[in-house]
């Protein structure tokens, strides 16, 4: 009976459904498991290339999840686990690319787009606000004619 609140608590905090199909995959220590999940969510499954290894059902993703947990249990830091993966699969394995010389344009794209937009607005407003040239003598006369006629 004492276990009921505990079971309810687990039901409430079960969180997002990930691809972990076998509960034996999970680490017994919840703090370590949470760390492993956070790391796994940043790692690309190389088979279904737009899913993280936590989301993918592919065999390889399962293997990689197991390795992440192994490393976490062995006391590796998050950075060390990511580096382990990157040594084998390259920077592509990171779902969030790091800011390097090759990815400057990627990370800078929002700022560049914003700057282009700002420039366009600035130019548009300047030409829009430019004052019209004063009327010439002939135009003033023509205008006077028109106004006089009505």
């Amino acid at each position, binding site marked *: 009976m004492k276990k009921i609140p505990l079971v309810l608590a687990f039901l409430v905090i079960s969180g997002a459904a990930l691809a972990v199909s076998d509960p034996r995959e999970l680490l017994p220590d919840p703090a370590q498991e949470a760390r492993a999940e956070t790391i796994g969510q940043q790692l690309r499954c*190389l*088979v279904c*290339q737009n899913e993280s290894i936590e989301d993918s059902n592919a*065999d390889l993703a399962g*293997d990689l999840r197991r*390795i992440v947990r192994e490393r976490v249990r062995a006391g590796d830091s998050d950075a060390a686990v990511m580096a382990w993966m990157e040594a*084998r*699969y390259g920077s592509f394995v990171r779902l969030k690319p790091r800011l390097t010389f090759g990815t400057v344009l990627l990370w800078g794209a929002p700022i560049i787009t914003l700057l282009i937009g700002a420039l366009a607005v600035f130019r548009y407003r300047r030409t829009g606000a430019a004052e019209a040239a004063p009327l010439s003598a002939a135009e003033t006369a023509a205008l006077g004619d028109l106004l006089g006629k009505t």
Partner: protein
Amino acid sequence: MARRRLILLAPLAVLAAAGFGFFTMLNRMQKGRFDPHDIGNPMLGKPMPDFDLPGVGGAGFSSADLRKAAAAGPIVVNFFASWCIPCANEAASLANLAKSGVPIWGIAYKDKPPAVQNFLTQGGNPFARLAMDAGRVAIDFGLFGVPETFIIDRHGMIAWHHAGPLDDTSITNELLPKLALL
């Protein structure tokens, strides 16, 4: 006025550049020189990982065995599986390669000995040595699927890598020229 006209041409220029890019991609895909799913392999140019794998029935091999054998001349290492259809498709080309005298060592990926034996009986066995891997060594090689093929050079380095099935064209155009350089 000339400037305005130039600005109007800009979208056309962008479109032309994109079109050229897509054309090049499709063209290379058709010729097998570009694979959008290939992620490259950062292990290229690095020493091969250490491993010691069991065989299929008989003895397997370790990285030490491979390094020792490769010291005499580069060795092609092929990861395959009996359950993998592209692997069955590349079997004939691998058999030709083996017949031409190139040593190929095979690693069966996530497989069972009887299934491997059956696969090799049916499709021919091009492998000088054979081992089985449950998946861990493959990850150390940066493998993301089967088949994948590597060349181990005289210094035990990974000198070449190909993801996906080999065919006579890719063997003649890529693998053999690379072998000739090593």
